[in-house]
């Protein structure tokens, strides 16, 4: 399940909802990862753009991968503005066994950072500034560039 919210995430409620949804699925391990906006470099918050069609396909490929391991993945992300100390991201793995869950949440979050079509902006002094230096070019980027 992938949910996009137009505001900061209500983390306690989302975790409760997910936990209760899987209460009788016989999973032994549940590992959420929650990302929260930190105060640094004088920002007032972050803002996100999301391209949902490709995000959905990417998420579906991970859901299929998890299913082969007997696990399931859920994810929630904010679009638009999220202010300091609010949360913008939750990913969670449910799995029969802890080792699968621990390695899957790790791989999922790393791949999310490298591939998910989401763009981050710093909110600073009333401006929305693309966080280029913290961003990662998607694998295969640059094919339209001038041939070297």
């Amino acid at each position, binding site marked *: 399940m992938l949910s996009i919210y137009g505001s900061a995430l209500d983390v306690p409620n989302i975790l409760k909802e997910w936990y209760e949804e899987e209460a009788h699925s016989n999973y032994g391990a549940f590992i959420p990862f929650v*990302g929260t906006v930190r105060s640094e470099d004088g920002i007032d918050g972050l803002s*996100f*753009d*999301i*391209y949902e*069609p*490709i995000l959905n*396909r990417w998420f579906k490929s991970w859901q299929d991968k998890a299913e082969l391991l007997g696990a399931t993945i859920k994810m929630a*992300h904010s679009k638009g503005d999220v202010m300091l100390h609010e949360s*913008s*991201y939750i990913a969670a793995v449910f799995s029969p066994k802890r080792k699968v869950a621990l390695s899957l949440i790790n791989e999922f*979050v790393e791949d*999310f*950072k*490298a*591939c*998910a*079509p*989401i*763009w*981050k*902006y710093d909110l600073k002094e009333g401006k929305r500034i*693309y*966080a*280029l230096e*913290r*961003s*990662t*070019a*998607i*694998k*295969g*980027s*640059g*094919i*339209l*560039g*001038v041939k070297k």
Partner: protein
Amino acid sequence: MVKVEFLGPIQKEPLELEIRNLNELANILREDAQMQEWLENSAVAVNDTLVSSLDVDLKDGDRVSLLPPVCGG
């Protein structure tokens, strides 16, 4: 007609182009001064599937998207 969309921070309106492949798109975009900073670091999707080379034919109604560097979370 092929529709070309510029995602995230690329501040550019979509284009409608008569092109038959990604090589033709590359030639057009390389002439666009505003696009120079994005061509080297953007990924390309055709109909929402990422592609890894320019050897892709396009047909009427296809959509091409440019995806600059990402940072979710």
